[in-house]
């Protein structure tokens, strides 16, 4: 494939960042905005062309005769050489998941660019906003097309930084500043694990390349396989550390990076706060793209994870706990963006669990496909929900549902699209969420009924809290909106909503299994209606019904329920006090318990001992100063004494 188009996919957003960043202040808002939109639109078209070429061209570089999809490296430029074999390259790896992701990223990013024309209109720093969006798109695209794990790490850091910049967009607001700081530091902490994991993996295998880790060469391309011919994994044989194999350690540490970015428990605390950023940013970064980077990372290294059941088990457990936790918390939040944030955490955890339960022996790792499928559908409907929330916030100037209610009359487009989003996430057929979630649940049930039941319960909770949100916004009780009745946004805001809603309606019917599977072998989805689909539909409908009863009209049921829950509601409302725990650890233990003592130690002990030496020298000189009395005769006495002593000694030695 001609490398020009893939190169342009990366370069256009980078160019956009540089142009808007350096020259943006000379442009008008309109020019900057439209430049960003056009740049992203072009990128989106190019990404579609690339993905279409990959999936449908039947080129031998992309698909074998037997129909197996291959990994193809379009270009791979040496960027930094550490040793002969450890080389960081910047390249473009085209395979099912990267092709999928570039489509998702560019689509959502384009929608957000367009949407922001309306949402951010008149904001100070409009050009800066677009520059950051472009930077983020560039970094995210670079991340998903990475050919080696270090390239991924590089762009991983870059998305972190652009996320930092965008969360802190309203930099005069202290809460935004601290939220951006928190997001960066928490993910940085996770990246530490990622880095150490990379170090271990690269030290043992002597390579960074994904194709070396997971694939065998097949012509000019690579086919994903379990036992790679280089025998890289054989080098791990016998290497253990603290009772676990070194590979497990490496993989778990790398997954820790994913936990940070994807906001898995216990590193999830930054994501709800990240909602301080502008809402379109939340849609793009903190719902659809960046937060699924962790899922993508695990999927990218999936054949390696398959080697280590323990690591997959760890992923499953973390994912399952996070999914439940986030779903419970989402039921109690007041800020609509936070509800959506916790919902995102929960949904990403779904994908994680799905990856964790995937095994080749169960329907050729159905979970892998399901996870990617859900990633795709979730990106669409969650972006839709966030953009819808943005439209609401834009209309009522508040994040809290308490300021909303009865909005269905004033904002029909938003209402319909939001409802579609809710139905999709709740898993009601024929919306896209149903299909992907169904695959995930099937995969869970195949592994063990425990996971299946657990995740079904979480799915029910999902339906409940989403419809709670829906009813509280669009029904419930109408507050006094004053003279300015809320209304739908301009067409630039509505168009992305409609588009994403349309996608959410039909995405479920994409034959996803034929496009994406863990080893490129096509897989045919067949829905197990009786075993999995029907029960989950029943659960979802029941949950929606409950939500309808509780929240459709203003009533006192929710309050009674909260009171009856013996503190559970309060605890969930306070997110089970994770923030407080973190605050305690960072502030009390690390800041006051480590940093301050070290600074004190440095000032008083280390520097003190240096000053002490100086003091000692000074004392000594003060002590011997009186010897210099200024009296000549005293000097002569001393001198004479010394001279005589020397003379006497000489005499004694020489003459005796």
């Amino acid at each position: 494939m001609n490398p020009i188009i893939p190169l342009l996919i990366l370069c256009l957003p980078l160019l956009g960042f540089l142009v808007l960043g350096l020259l943006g202040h000379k442009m008008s808002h309109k020019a900057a905005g439209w430049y960003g939109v056009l740049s992203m639109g072009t990128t989106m078209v190019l990404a579609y062309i690339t993905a279409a070429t990959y999936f449908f061209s039947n080129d031998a570089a992309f698909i074998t005769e037997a129909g197996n999809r291959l990994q193809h490296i379009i270009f791979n430029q040496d960027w930094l050489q550490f040793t002969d074999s450890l080389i960081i390259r910047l390249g473009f790896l085209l395979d099912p998941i990267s092709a999928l992701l570039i489509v998702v990223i560019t689509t959502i990013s384009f929608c957000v660019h367009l949407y922001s024309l309306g949402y951010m209109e008149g904001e100070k720093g409009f050009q800066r906003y677009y520059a950051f969006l472009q930077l983020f798109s560039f970094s995210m695209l670079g991340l998903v097309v990475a050919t080696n794990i270090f390239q991924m790490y590089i762009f991983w850091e870059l998305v972190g930084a652009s996320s930092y910049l965008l969360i802190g967009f309203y930099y005069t607001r202290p809460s935004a500043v601290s939220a951006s700081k928190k997001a960066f530091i928490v993910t940085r902490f996770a990246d530490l694990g990622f880095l150490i994991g990379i170090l271990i993996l690269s030290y043992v295998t002597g390579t960074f390349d994904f194709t070396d880790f997971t694939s065998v060469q097949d012509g000019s391309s690579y086919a994903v396989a379990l036992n790679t011919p280089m025998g890289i994994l054989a080098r791990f044989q016998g290497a253990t550390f603290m009772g676990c194999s070194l590979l497990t350690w490496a993989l778990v540490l790398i997954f820790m990076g994913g936990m940070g970015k994807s906001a898995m428990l216990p590193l999830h605390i930054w994501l709800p706060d990240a909602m301080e950023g502008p809402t379109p940013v939340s849609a793009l970064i903190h719902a659809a793209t960046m937060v699924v980077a962790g899922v993508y990372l695990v999927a990218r290294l999936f054949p390696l994870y398959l080697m280590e059941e323990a690591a997959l088990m760890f992923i499953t457990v973390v994912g399952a706990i996070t999914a439940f936790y986030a779903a419970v918390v989402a039921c109690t939040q007041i800020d609509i963006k936070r509800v959506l944030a916790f919902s995102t955490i929960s949904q990403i955890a779904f994908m994680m669990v799905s990856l964790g339960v995937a095994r080749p022996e169960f329907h050729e790792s159905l979970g892998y496909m399901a996870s990617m499928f859900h990633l795709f559908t979730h990106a669409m409907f969650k972006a839709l929900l966030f953009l819808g929330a943005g439209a609401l916030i834009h209309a009522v100037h508040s994040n809290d549902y308490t300021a909303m209610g009865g909005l269905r009359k004033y904002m029909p487009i938003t209402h319909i699209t939001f409802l579609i989003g809710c139905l999709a996430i709740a898993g009601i057929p024929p919306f896209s969420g149903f299909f992907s979630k169904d695959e995930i649940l099937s995969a869970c049930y195949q592994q063990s009924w425990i996971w299946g039941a657990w995740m079904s319960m979480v799915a029910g909770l999902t339906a409940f809290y989403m419809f709670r949100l829906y009813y509280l916004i669009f029904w419930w009780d109408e507050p006094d909106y004053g003279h300015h009745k809320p209304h739908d946004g301009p067409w630039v805001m509505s168009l992305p909503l409609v588009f994403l809603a349309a996608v959410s309606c039909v995405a479920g019917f994409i034959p996803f299994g034929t496009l994406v599977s863990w080893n490129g072998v096509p897989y045919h989805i067949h829905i197990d209606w009786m075993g999995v689909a029907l029960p989950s539909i029943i659960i979802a409908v029941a949950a929606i019904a409950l939500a309808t009863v509780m929240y459709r009209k203003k009533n006192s049921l929710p309050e009674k329920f909260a009171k009856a829950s013996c503190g559970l509601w309060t605890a969930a409302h306070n997110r089970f006090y994770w923030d407080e725990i973190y605050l305690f650890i960072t502030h009390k233990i690390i800041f006051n318990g480590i940093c301050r003592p070290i600074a004190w130690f440095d000032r008083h002990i280390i520097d003190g001992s240096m000053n002490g030496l100086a003091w000692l020298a000074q004392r000594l000189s003060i002590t011997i100063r009186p010897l210099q009395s200024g009296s000549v005769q005293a000097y002569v006495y001393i001198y004479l004494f010394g001279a005589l002593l020397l003379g006497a000694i000489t005499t004694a030695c020489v003459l005796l």
Partner: protein
Amino acid sequence: MEINVLYYLLPSLVMFCCGIYGFLTRKNMIAMLISLELMLNAVDINFTVINRFIYPDGQEGMFFSLFAIAIAAAETAMAIAIIINLYRVNKNVDVRDANKLQG
């Protein structure tokens, strides 16, 4: 009585010790300077005598004394200039009042 080198060295030793005594005990700076001259002279005598008695072939001792005299003259001139200056300040030449250089 054969006059050997010792006969010359002993008076100069006495002279030297008188110089030491005077330098250590006098308070008048000029008197101290005089004692200093005594010591210098004793040393000059020693140089000359030892040169003459033990190394008659060379002239080092003699020349040393010669230069020492020249330098002593210079030194005395300097010293007296300083003493007179101190006298202007202190209105006396007592060495105990000239202790400004203490540490």
